[in-house]
């Protein structure tokens, strides 16, 4: 349904880029503060890392990885079209290529993120 709206793939690509960008930015704000605690309050840092390693933490980590990978691939697609405008004609195909790479890398990374919950 989303893909049938007027903007089609280009609009969805833009919306996802924006949402993933803001999400990554939120994590960066959190992450700089938590890393500061390594020097400022080491015990608090250890506690936060336990949360990151829990199931909800891993789901968050997984979503962060997905946002990062999408934003990175789609960002590269935007840069390529900005500096090589004839390729804009194939913006839709490039976007689907992004998703193909995303799927392959995503499955591999997901395996490593969730495996420690099952194998000790």
């Amino acid at each position, binding site marked *: 349904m989303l893909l049938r709206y007027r903007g089609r793939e280009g609009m969805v690509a833009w919306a996802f880029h924006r949402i993933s960008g803001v999400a990554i930015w939120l994590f960066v704000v959190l992450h700089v503060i938590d890393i500061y605690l390594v020097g400022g309050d080491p015990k608090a840092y250890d506690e936060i890392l336990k949360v990151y390693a829990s199931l909800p933490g891993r789901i968050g980590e997984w979503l962060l*990885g997905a946002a990062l990978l999408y934003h990175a691939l789609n960002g590269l697609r935007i840069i390529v079209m900005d500096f090589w405008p004839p390729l804009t004609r194939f913006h839709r195909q490039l976007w689907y290529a992004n998703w193909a790479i995303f799927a392959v890398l995503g499955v591999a990374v997901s395996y490593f993120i969730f495996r420690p919950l099952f194998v000790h």
Partner: protein
Amino acid sequence: MTVYSRSGRTKPQGGGWELAVWYLMRLTGVALFVLALTHYLILHVLYDPAQQDTNFITTVRWSSLFWRAFDWTLLMMVLFHGFMGVRTVVADYTRGGVRTAILMGLYLLAIVLFVLGTLVVMTLPVVPKG
């Protein structure tokens, strides 16, 4: 006429600061493609978060100048790219005094994160491995 994709921000006409930001977003974007994905790969795939704590940072992750420099460069790139990106988002949905207030808060937060991040990566004592 050349067709431009609207997935990214349209290149500002003329020159000056806005055009510089447009180029710098792309430059830092390419740098982050390498730095951020490498950082994620190492700290979320090669090392599991369950293995990580203060001790891990001091004796493994930040035991060499290379990885401290790597993470500090990543911080510089992400602060510029992230905050300039959010600036674009804020400018799209707000205007007038509200926009000015939010942007001031945003820049203040960027400075705070620059100070906190730089401080910890540059002053945390080096503990050699083993």
